[in-house]
């Protein structure tokens, strides 16, 4: 069994004899020399990833104003930063949106503007105290004017991530990009073979205090990230680095259409090859890393996996889904991940970067639990009208008109001979038919594309469907498409009125 100490490896970095390879190159080296040979030969394996990391942000210290202010609210280019700490500290988060420009500009853009040395407008308000009398402050700052700009990311560098697709009949816009209807595409994120945590999944060398590449500068691992979930290979990291030293090559703001803003963060971890077990784990390939394809069309925390897939399959550009070939897109940049692994390799070879042993290992037993919700979230079944009047598609349009008149309902779900929902008829459809003098059967005048709700959907989901499709009522159906009720925007208004 070969063992190498961190000290020994750092001595080689110092005298220039160190052998550094990227995690991509390591695959072939282990295949060629075997694990033992590779352990002897290679001292450090570098990794890299460059993708959307929404849970990122920066602590800023502005210095004290004259007269001093204890900022209670702070905005940078109209994006609010959190300042519920001491007088002139604030945390700007990547996902906070501009109060003036909405989704076009957010905290991520403020961070990129700072990295690029651009001026940023600072506005702050306060309640005023004896020692901090000032109540309003407006100034313009850039990164050089700040005492500190410390990036501190609650959750970065996911070991791997779910691939996303969409089984609904309309395009949906997510943090995984545009997902085309009817499983029209699949998107994924992560660097696969170069993924930092996938190259040391048992955290033999990665932990609190590990020195890393962050945004083009040297940074550190603080410890586990939020939602760190090692048991299903969804480990995450909390990272720290000096924004003043970072480069806009590796810190880039992003806009996800109809979702919000995010920050692309470039990071890489050097893995010192201290023993054969580490050498073996750095030989991981795209084909070894398995993830799930999830239907993001399901607006729920629990989305059953449609299939498992490897990063090798995802990166081939096409995967099979429900017997169909579906194109895939990466949301993270493999080319930049490779650049990061190469740049980190250069730093180590040039003696500019030394590897570390973790002060603490990352926890390997924690789980990411769902939220405890004490408020009862009403379901469609709780508020829908159960005495719904339905009509058969072979009925005449006069019968439909009479039914609407008699029952004072605006919407009539239309069913087939088997009692399955096939459409909906509204007073509007009838007016149209009258205006055109088309006295047909219900099935000729009904709207065939009908939105539906399930009885066990939360009311919020039904409200969003009504809103998205600009309709005021939806039949509620069971698994056999039998109509068991109807939910209207009135029902939802009443629910909200009762709550207030």
């Amino acid at each position, binding site marked *: 069994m070969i063992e190498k100490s961190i000290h020994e490896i750092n001595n080689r970095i110092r005298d220039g004899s160190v052998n550094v390879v990227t995690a991509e190159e390591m695959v072939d080296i282990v295949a060629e020399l075997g694990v033992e040979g590779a352990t002897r030969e290679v001292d450090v394996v570098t990794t890299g990833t*460059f*993708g*959307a990391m929404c849970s990122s942000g920066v602590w800023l210290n502005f210095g004290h104003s004259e007269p001093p202010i204890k900022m209670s609210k702070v905005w940078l280019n109209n994006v609010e930063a959190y300042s519920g700490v001491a007088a002139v500290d604030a945390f700007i988060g990547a996902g906070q949106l501009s109060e003036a420009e909405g989704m076009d500009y957010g905290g991520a853009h403020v961070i990129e503007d700072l990295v690029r040395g651009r001026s940023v407008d600072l506005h702050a308000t306060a309640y005023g105290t004896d020692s901090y009398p000032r109540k309003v402050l407006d100034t313009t700052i850039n990164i050089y004017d700040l005492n500190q700009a410390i990036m501190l990311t609650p959750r970065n560098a996911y070991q791997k991530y779910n691939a996303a697709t969409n089984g609904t009949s309309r395009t949906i*816009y997510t943090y995984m*990009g*545009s997902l*085309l209807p009817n499983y029209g*595409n*699949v*998107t994924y994120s992560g660097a696969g073979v170069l993924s930092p945590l996938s190259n040391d999944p048992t955290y033999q060398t990665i932990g609190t205090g590990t020195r890393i590449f962050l945004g083009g500068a040297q940074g550190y691992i603080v410890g586990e990230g939020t939602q760190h979930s090692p048991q299903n290979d969804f480990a995450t990291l909390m990272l720290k680095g000096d924004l003043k030293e970072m480069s806009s090559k590796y810190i*880039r703001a*992003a*806009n*996800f*259409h109809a979702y919000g803003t*995010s920050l*692309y963060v470039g990071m890489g971890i050097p893995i010192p090859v201290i023993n054969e077990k580490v050498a073996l784990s750095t030989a991981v390939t795209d084909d070894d890393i398995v993830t799930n394809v999830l239907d993001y069309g399901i607006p729920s925390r629990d989305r059953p996996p449609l299939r498992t897939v490897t990063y090798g399959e995802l990166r081939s*550009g096409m995967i099979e889904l429900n017997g169909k070939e*579906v*194109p*895939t*897109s*990466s*949301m*993270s*940049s*493999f*080319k*930049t991940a*490779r650049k990061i692994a190469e740049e980190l390799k250069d730093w180590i070879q040039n003696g500019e970067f030394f590897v570390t042993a973790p002060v603490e290992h990352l926890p390997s037993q924690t789980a990411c639990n769902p939220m405890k919700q004490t408020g009862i979230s009403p379901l469609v079944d709780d508020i829908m009208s159960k005495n719904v009047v339905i009509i058969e598609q072979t009925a005449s349009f006069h019968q439909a008109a009479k039914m609407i008149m008699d029952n004072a309902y605006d919407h009539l779900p239309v069913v087939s001979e088997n009692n399955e929902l096939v459409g909906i008829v509204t007073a509007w459809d009838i007016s149209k038919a009258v205006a055109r003098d088309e006295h047909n059967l219900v099935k000729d005048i009904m709207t065939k594309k009908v939105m539906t709700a399930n009885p066990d959907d939360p009311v919020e989901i039904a409200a969003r469907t009504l809103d998205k499709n600009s309709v005021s009522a939806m039949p509620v159906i069971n698994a056999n498409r039998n109509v068991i009720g109807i939910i209207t925007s009135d029902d939802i208004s009443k629910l909200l009125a009762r709550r207030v």
Partner: protein
Amino acid sequence: MNISQAHFDSTHGEVIADIDKDHFKAIKDALTAKGAQVIVLDYPIVRDEEECIECGACISVCHVNVFSFSRDWSLEMDTDKCIQCGTCIKMCPHNALTLEH
């Protein structure tokens, strides 16, 4: 002709179609006679190489395969294929794609 996109509401409608050069005039005249406005879309998608990070998000949403990766994972474009549907513009997380008219 091959209709790639169609949008309609109660006030107006829009269809994007791929039309063979030889039939263009006849189809254009027929549509214009019915009151439609015909615009030739011949300014394909433009990529801002400074903003683009070459993630490839655009690849899977393009129905006509304008985008692809080269062997070194650089993003390549075949703009001759572009039908200017604009789907990739919304997909791009870095606002690197635009259609200029």
